[in-house]
C-alpha cells in the first residue's frame, strides 16, 4: 500500500472520531466539518514525519485538539478563554466535596451531552479533550498553555457546573 493509500485508509477510519472532537469543541456541524478537513490536511502534510510507533488516533486527535483550540481562541479574541488560575483554584477549593456520581448516573446520555455543550468554553474544552479526545492533562496543558494543575481545576469546575445544571433540569422535570 502506498503512503497515499494508507493515509486515505486512516482518514476513513478516523474521520468520525476527529469530527466528533471538533463538533464538541466548536459547536456547529458546519464548523466541525471544515475543521476536520483542515485537521486531515495538516496531518497529510505532516504525515511523513509521523512516528509509526505512536497510535494514529492519539496523533490526529492531538492535532485536532490544537487546531480547534486555536479556532476558539481566534473566535473569542479579547474574551479571555481561560480565567486566572488563582481565582479558579480558589473557587474550586471552596466547593464542598459532595457525593456526585449518582446525580448524573441516572441521566440520559443525550441530556448529559446537551449539558456539556452548554458549558462555557473554558470548561468544555479541557473536559472534552480529556474524556473524548483521550488527552492526558499534560497534553491539554500544552495545548491550552496553562499548568497541569490548572487543567485539573478547569475540568473539576466543569464537572461541578454540569452537576448543577443537570440537577436543576431534574428539578424542573419533576416539578
Amino acid at each position, binding site marked *: 500500500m502506498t503512503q497515499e493509500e494508507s493515509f486515505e485508509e486512516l482518514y476513513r477510519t478516523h474521520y468520525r472520531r476527529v469530527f466528533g472532537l471538533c463538533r464538541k469543541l466548536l459547536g456547529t456541524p458546519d464548523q466541525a466539518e471544515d475543521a476536520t478537513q483542515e485537521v486531515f490536511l495538516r496531518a497529510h502534510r505532516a504525515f511523513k514525519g509521523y512516528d509509526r510507533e505512536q497510535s494514529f488516533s492519539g496523533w490526529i486527535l492531538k492535532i485536532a485538539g490544537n487546531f480547534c483550540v486555536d479556532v476558539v481562541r481566534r473566535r473569542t479574541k479579547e474574551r479571555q478563554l481561560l480565567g486566572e488560575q488563582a481565582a479558579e483554584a480558589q473557587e474550586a477549593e471552596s466547593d464542598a466535596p459532595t457525593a456526585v456520581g449518582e446525580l448524573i448516573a441516572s*441521566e440520559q446520555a443525550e441530556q448529559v451531552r446537551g449539558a456539556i455543550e452548554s458549558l462555557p468554553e473554558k470548561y468544555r474544552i479541557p473536559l472534552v479533550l480529556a474524556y473524548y479526545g483521550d488527552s492526558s492533562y499534560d497534553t491539554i496543558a500544552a495545548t491550552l498553555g496553562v499548568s497541569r494543575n490548572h487543567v485539573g481545576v478547569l*475540568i473539576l469546575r466543569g464537572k461541578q457546573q454540569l452537576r448543577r445544571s443537570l440537577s436543576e433540569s431534574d428539578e424542573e422535570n419533576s416539578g
Partner: protein
Amino acid sequence: MTCPSELSYSMYVDGALPAEEVVSLMAHLKTCEHCQSLLTGLTLEREVLTTALQQTDEEIVVPKFRRSVSLRTLLGFFAGAIAPLWGIRTVWGAVSSFSIPAGLQWLNPFDAIGLMDLAFSSVIGLFYEGTTMIDSIVTSIGTSIFVALVAWGVFSVVKRRTGISVLASVALLIMVAPSLQAFEIQRSDEFVNVAAGEVIDDTLIAMSDSVTVDGTINGDLVALARRVVVRGTVNGNLLTAAESVSVEGRVTGTVLGFARSLDFADGQIGRNLYGFARDISTNTETDVEGNAAVFAEEAELEGQIGVDLIGFAEELELSGNVARDFTAFAESVTLQAPARVNRNLTAYLASEDDLRMAPGTTVGGTTDTQIVDDDGPRNRYLSDDFYMLQALRLGAAFVTGLIFLWLFPVLRTVAVGKGSEGLKTGGIGLLALIATPILIVIAAVTVVGIPLALMSVALFLTAIYLAKIVSAVFVGRVLLETSNRHYAIILLAGLVAVLIAINIPFIGGLLNVLLTILGLGIIAELVMAQSRARS
C-alpha cells in the same frame, strides 16, 4: 485530619495526580468514609461522561478527502495551461499571415546583413517579441488570478469567512485599481503614433515596429520598438529601447535610452540623459539641462550640457558646451571648436596623444590626463565590485535554484553514474550544447519554425542557466556526502563551490564549460528518463 481536596480526587480519577500525592491520598482513604464515597461518585461520573461523549445520534457521512491545492500545483497548472495556448496562438499567427512578420525580418537568413547588425537586431527582436510574450503571459496569469480571486471571494462570503472575503476584496481592488487610471498601453504590429495636437494625459507604454510622438504626452513614455521618434513633447521621462531613437522634441524629465543609434538633434531634455548605444549624437541646438552620461562606440556631442558630462566610448568628440566637469574614459577624446568645458576635464586614456584639443576650445579649470595601464586588465580579484557581483550572482542563482528544486523535486537528487555512465552524461550534455543552436537555426530557416526557434532560444538559455544550478546540486551532494540534508543547504554548498571554481584564473573558463555540459547532460537524461517512463 483534613480531607484532601475534591480537586485531588478528581485528578486521581483521571490518572493525573502526582505519584507522591497518590500515596498520602490512599492512606487517608482507608480511614475516611466521606472521601471513599466522593471517590466512588467521581469514578462513576467519569464513566458517565466518557460514555455520554462517545455516543452520538448524529449520522456522520465521511466526505471524500480533499487534498490541498499547493502553490506548486497551481504553478504547474498555470504553466501547463498558458504555454500550449500561447504556442498555438503564436504558431497560428505566423501561419495565417503566411509571410515573415515585419518585426522578424532580421531572422531571415537570406536577408544578408552584417554580423553586428544581426546580433543587434536579434537583441532588439527578442526584446520586442519578449515583451509581447511577457505581456500575453502576464495578461493570462492576471486574468486567471482575477477569476480565482473572484471565486475565492464568493466562496468566502458563502462560507461567511469575513476575514478572508475582506482580504480577497482588497486584493481585487489592488488589481483593478491601476488598470483604471495608471497608464495606457498601446501595442501594434506596424506603428504607434501620437499625432500632432493629440494629448495623452497618462503614462504611455508603446510597443510596436515604430513609435512616433508628434503630440504631447503628460506622463512618462516607455517605448519599445524598432524605431522611436519624439518630435512632440513628453512631460515626463522617456524610457526607450529601440534600434534607432531620435529625440527632436522636448522631454521634460530624464531620458534613458538603449539603442543602436541615439540621435538628439534639436532635442531638449529637462533633466538627465543616460544613453547606451553604438552611436550617440547631439547637434548645436540640443540642450540637456542636467547631467549627461553616454556609453557608446562613437559619441559626437554638440549643444549644451547643463551640469556634468561623463562619457565611456571608443571615440568621444565634444564640440558643445559643458557647464561643469567633463570626465571621459575612452580610446580617443577630441575637443572641436567651439567646445567649452567650464570646469575640469579629466580623461582616462591609453596615452596622452589620445586627447586632442583643437584651437578655439576652452577648459575653464584643469585638464588632467590619466594614463590607463593598457598592459592588461586590473586584477579583478582585488576590486570590491568583483565580490559584490559574485555575491549577487550567488544570491540570484540560489533563489532561482530553490524555486526550481521546489518545483521539480526530481532535480534534488541528481546523480551521475560512475565510469561509462558518467561519460555518457557528459556526451549527452556536449551534444545538447552544440546541437541545440544548430537545430534552432535550422528551425528558423523555415517560416513556420520561427516561433519554435524563438521558444527554443528562450528554453536553451534557461537550460544553460539551470545547468550550472543542477551541477551545483550535484557538486553539493558530493561535497556533503549525504542526501539527508535539506536541499537548500546542498544547493548553497554546491553553488559556492561552483562559483569559486569558475572564477579560478586560467582554468575557471574551462571548468565553467565543463559544469555547463555536466548540468545539461543531467537535465537531458532526466528529461529522457521522464519521457521513457511516460511512454
